[in-house]
């Protein structure tokens, strides 16, 4: 049982500002069903850049709902710039503190706010989506992790998991998290993104062989760890046809796995124009 403060309970049982704003000035969305929590934030901003209304919809645990409620209460009436000064720490403090394993709920609140403001300003991408995905299980980028380390003065890999969820799944990103931590302490050089050596001018046959090799040796073992699997059915020009098996076949997020993991890996390694499609 989590030790929640009365304030968390109050904002969970009777959350403030639940719902959508039909004519919202902007919307910020973070998380997903697969991740176990998600927050959609609606803001109404007047001509003086003041937030006149804020509403939310949240899927998640008690602290996620309470953090969302707290966030909307805190930013209503503030200008957008003032609102951006609200940190995830402030959200947690407003609630009288959160269990440390639940700090990522307050981070999610802050990220939704950033995403909404980016949307308002017409920026192409929400800040949290920039950077390279370090933790594949929860889709957490190095930008998010670096920021969480700096803003919350994180000292251990465990704390990174508490604040961002990175590392809380299969654990294969833990080494990279340790590197990011060391780097923030000034110990290590920044991670060098290794430019994948991409073969050029492959014949059709060579391309097929390479695709098959990468699926068998890299992608399939990695999906098997989660109880799923993948099979190469055919390669038709630049279209790769695959079939998902096991846990993957019934998983709602399988399309994401397909696009963000399988297709990305094949594009990196074989050909940037490849398209991966599932045959059922």
């Amino acid at each position, binding site marked *: 049982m989590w030790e929640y403060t009365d304030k968390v309970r109050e904002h969970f049982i009777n959350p403030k500002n639940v719902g959508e704003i039909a004519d919202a000035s902007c919307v910020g969305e973070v998380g997903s069903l697969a991740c*176990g929590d998600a927050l959609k934030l609606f803001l109404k901003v007047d001509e003086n850049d003041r937030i006149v209304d804020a509403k939310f919809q949240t899927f998640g645990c008690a602290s996620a709902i309470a953090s969302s409620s707290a966030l909307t209460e805190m930013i209503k009436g503030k200008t957008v710039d003032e609102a951006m000064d609200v940190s995830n720490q402030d959200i947690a403090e407003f609630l009288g503190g959160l269990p440390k394993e639940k700090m990522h709920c307050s981070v999610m609140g802050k990220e939704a706010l950033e995403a909404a403001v980016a949307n308002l300003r017409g920026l192409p991408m929400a800040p949290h989506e920039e950077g390279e995905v370090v933790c594949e299980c929860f889709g957490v980028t190095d930008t998010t992790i670096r920021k969480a380390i700096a803003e919350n003065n994180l000292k251990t890999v465990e704390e990174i998991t508490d604040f961002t969820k990175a590392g809380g799944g299969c654990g294969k990103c833990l080494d990279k998290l340790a590197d990011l931590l060391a780097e923030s302490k000034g110990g290590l050089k920044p991670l060098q993104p290794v430019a994948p050596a991409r073969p050029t001018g492959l014949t059709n046959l060579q391309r097929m062989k390479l695709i098959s090799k990468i699926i068998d040796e890299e992608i399939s073992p990695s999906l098997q760890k989660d109880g799923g699997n993948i099979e190469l059915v055919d390669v038709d020009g630049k279209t790769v046809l695959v079939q998902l098996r096991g846990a*993957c076949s019934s*998983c709602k997020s399988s399309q994401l796995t397909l696009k963000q993991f399988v297709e990305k890996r094949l594009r990196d390694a074989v050909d940037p124009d490849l398209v991966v499609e599932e045959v059922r």
Partner: protein
Amino acid sequence: MPVIYMDNNATTKVDPAVLEEMLPYFSEQYGNPSSMHMFGGMVGRKLSEARERVAASFGCQPGEIIFNACGTEGDNTAIRSALASQPDKRHIITTRVEHPAVLNLVKHLERKGYEATYLGVDEQGRLDLEELRDAIRHDTALISVMFANNETGVIFPIKEIAEIAKERGVLMHTDAVQVLGKVPFDLKDIPVDFLAVSGHKVHAPKGVGAMFVRKGVQFRPFMMGGHQEHGRRAGTENTTGIIGLGKACELAMGNVTHENTVVRALRDKLEKKLIEAVPDTRINGVVDSRLPNTTSLAFQFVEGESILLMLDAFGVCASSGSACTSGSLEPSHVLRAMGVPFTYAHGSIRFSLSRFNTEADVDLVVAELPKIIHRLREISPFKRTEGEAPACTC
């Protein structure tokens, strides 16, 4: 506010008759059963009675029972003993849905150089016995498969599995922590070599367990020390706990029919009414081969911890397979092994009843839970018709 306890797969209430049986051995009858004097000897006699009661409920000999501290100890002891007695065999077969008492030990053993095969389950939580047959190697030391799953209640065909193991000359352990008192079994018919149970799941106290080691099977103790339990489990006996477990096993034999009629009917009603009242709800696990007291219900688009906390406000105790409750960030390994979609896995709630539940308990949950789910779905950004979740590489 009265407590409506529907979390009996986590732990159970000590039956008043069990407590009564135990009480004198805390106070007047505090002797050490190993002592030479009559005063201790009387306690020793009471332990023999407990051993006979446990053996009777298992269908085995009293000499095949070893008392210990918990289900986890039985699992650990059986697995380690099987490995220690066959040093040339380096392979273990188990399943992906075992309790951590088995799973984490096997993972640990893998790091120590053993090899393991984890059998998968289908979307209903069932094993494929062909896969098991294929997994057996010449150096397989042990097959360890749970009798019934604690999260879904799915019962595995342990008799068939044990027969396969026997035919292939491989030792077999089963974690029967969840079946004792819920499903009758007879070790004369089921050729397992080891079996583990736990007191606190059968209305006996916490801190006592028992294991069965078939006569003739080589045994390597886990605890070394005094000659208690014929040198197979050193340490002065938890006399009151053992006496309680003995009584609980005796009661369980008498109550098993009740579990499979009255308790089952309550579970079925709870399940049926909730599925009727709440759209987008499904049962995790194969419905016709389940413990009579357990249902794992998955409510789409809501998160388990939120449901539990709202139920808690009505005094209702249940548990969840969601990530948020357990301290881990991913939904339960059991639901994931079954390939339960994330949209459902995060919103899975397990209700596990006992003979102490009433119709009124079920009625209250049936009245309140649909409202709770409705409220949480109103807060949730995901709606039935919206389909795909926003992008995430989880």
